[in-house]
């Protein structure tokens, strides 16, 4: 067997092993749930809990002596099961702090494998785990620091088939995912299961945090707003930017992950989750649950907004709160719209076409190898539509930079493009419409971008412009990334 097949086999076995372990843990948990006596709401200290070991008193001593935690808070942490969905830039720091703080059971869910480009922000992963599941990489590191915690790996993507079943086994959920589709799914499933979600996100230099479906006495039904209450309608596909496209600063997403852990510690140690029930009995909670300290203080809905380069980086935005007609947590005017366990929507509808759009006829697209050979020919101009920052990182020799934002701004071919082409092959003057010929004929303009998506849009605009009617206009399949892998001379990032 080759090294690669061996490697793949190992990954498959690891995943299988992890899945079996998770199954055992989930069955054990259910067994425990079934045998445990119903918890009384009137006790602030859980009664049937084992005390802390001598090692644990020492280990958690520095937080234990804080009045906000104390022995009751530490025991609550120990008896709480937290699910972290997404073990990336948010999930890594969040998992670190929750594990260190002594949360009894941590479930980690992610289907991704560790990549080199993750390491600048996903601080649990190490080189040794590249190409292997993030969940296993994270558990390895977490266990090394705190073996007292029970770690449950879920090496799977969350979907509408498994969401409810997985979330039901936990007391609190951290949404550390990276796509709106999953965020709505997590919230919908959590509302049905009666669980609180600490949801955060980050991009570039900014982050947002909301607590979803939080036990509270200030809202009817005993619960705070769900994710849909904050963002009732999903954003259009073209406005969704991922960290891979938009970039993200490690400490920015790190701050958000740490804030999620902090919010989780506050919610758990205060006892707010005690008496947490599925929505059927939510009205009881609204009536007030004597004895628990948690959901008694009215708290207006808010969103934490972090803008790291702003002179005032932290803002707490005052939000409207629960929407009475919310299709997830409220009572929609049309009852048929209400989301239930069997009608969790198909979230694929949100994300529209995948990242590899095909706008151009295949005959108008070139491979990197073809263009690599054309470079340097007199009648060939390569125009790169990546932004200035990326162009500054690496570029094809002789190519001209006309950032895509200029194309989007005007909704037409920008002047900068015509100028660049003119300067490059100065024999051609596209504005002399009557006098074509003179080196204009036979000219080819090749448009290049990062992955081969923007370049198609730009090429299309040029093709549709009469000023370019005598040129051959093409774009490069796979963009600069493919160029780096196949032709060389530029770096992959």
């Amino acid at each position: 067997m080759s090294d690669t097949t061996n490697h793949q086999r190992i990954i498959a076995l690891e995943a299988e092993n992890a899945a079996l372990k998770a199954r055992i843990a989930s069955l054990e948990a259910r067994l425990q749930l079934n045998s445990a006596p119903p918890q009384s709401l009137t006790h602030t200290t859980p009664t049937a809990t084992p005390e802390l070991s001598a090692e644990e008193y020492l280990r958690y001593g520095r937080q234990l002596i804080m009045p906000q935690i104390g022995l009751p808070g530490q025991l609550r942490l120990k008896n709480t099961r937290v699910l972290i969905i997404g073990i990336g830039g948010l999930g890594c720091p969040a998992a670190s702090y929750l594990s260190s703080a002594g949360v009894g059971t941590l479930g980690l869910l992610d289907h991704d494998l560790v990549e080199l480009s993750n390491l600048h922000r996903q601080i649990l992963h190490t080189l040794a785990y590249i190409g292997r599941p993030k969940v296993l990489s994270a558990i390895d590191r977490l266990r090394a620091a705190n073996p007292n915690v029970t770690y449950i790996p879920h090496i799977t993507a969350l979907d509408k088939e498994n969401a409810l079943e997985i979330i039901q086994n936990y007391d609190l959920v951290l949404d550390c995912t990276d796509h709106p589709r999953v965020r709505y799914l997590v919230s919908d499933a959590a509302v049905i299961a009666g669980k609180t979600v600490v949801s955060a996100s980050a991009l570039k230099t900014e982050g947002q945090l909301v607590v979803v479906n939080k036990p509270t006495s200030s809202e009817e039904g005993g619960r705070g707003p769900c994710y849909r209450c904050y963002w009732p309608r999903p954003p259009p596909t073209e406005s969704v930017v991922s960290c891979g496209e938009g970039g993200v600063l490690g400490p920015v997403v790190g701050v958000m992950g740490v804030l999620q852990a902090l919010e989780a510690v506050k919610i758990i140690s205060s006892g707010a989750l005690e008496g947490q029930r599925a929505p059927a009995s939510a009205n009881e909670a609204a009536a007030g649950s004597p004895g628990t300290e948690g959901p008694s203080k009215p708290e207006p809905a808010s969103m934490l907004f972090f803008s790291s380069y702003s002179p005032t980086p932290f803002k707490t935005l005052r939000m409207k709160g629960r929407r009475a007609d919310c299709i997830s947590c409220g009572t929609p005017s049309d009852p048929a719209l209400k989301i239930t366990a069997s009608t969790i929507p198909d979230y694929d509808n949100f994300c529209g076409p995948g990242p590899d759009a095909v706008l151009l006829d295949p005959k108008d697209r070139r491979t990197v190898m073809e263009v690599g050979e054309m470079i340097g020919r007199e009648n060939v101009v390569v125009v790169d539509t990546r932004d200035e920052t990326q162009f500054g990182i690496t570029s094809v020799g002789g190519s001209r930079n006309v950032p895509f934002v200029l194309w989007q701004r005007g909704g037409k071919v920008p002047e900068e493009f015509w100028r660049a082409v003119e300067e490059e092959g100065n024999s051609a003057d596209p504005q002399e419409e009557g006098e074509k010929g003179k080196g204009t004929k036979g000219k080819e303009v090749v448009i290049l971008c990062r992955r081969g998506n923007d370049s198609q849009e730009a090429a299309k605009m040029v093709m549709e412009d009469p000023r370019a009617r005598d040129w051959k206009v093409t774009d490069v399949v796979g963009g600069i990334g493919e160029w780096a892998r196949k032709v060389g001379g530029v770096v992959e990032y």
Partner: protein
Amino acid sequence: MANIPITVEFSGGLELLFASERSLSLEVAEGTTVGELVNILVDKHMVDTRTELFVVDGTVRPGILVLINDADWELEGEESYVLEKKDTILFVSTLHGG
């Protein structure tokens, strides 16, 4: 009618639609509503031609929150809110990365 000074802020990537300006200091006519302000922004300040990334069906598109002095505009009467001197109107779009 007199003009009043207000501040408009963009974040979550919306600044890219406004020539990468995160903050604008504007003067608007007294009595201008937030709804009218949105139109003024589209007509006079937006540089990107893809207006649908900011406004859909005459109001800000899904996925954008409007905050009037850090409070959700739904708490303040939404589009009908009448701007006051030194108000800060913040437009935030959903972030998804993680």
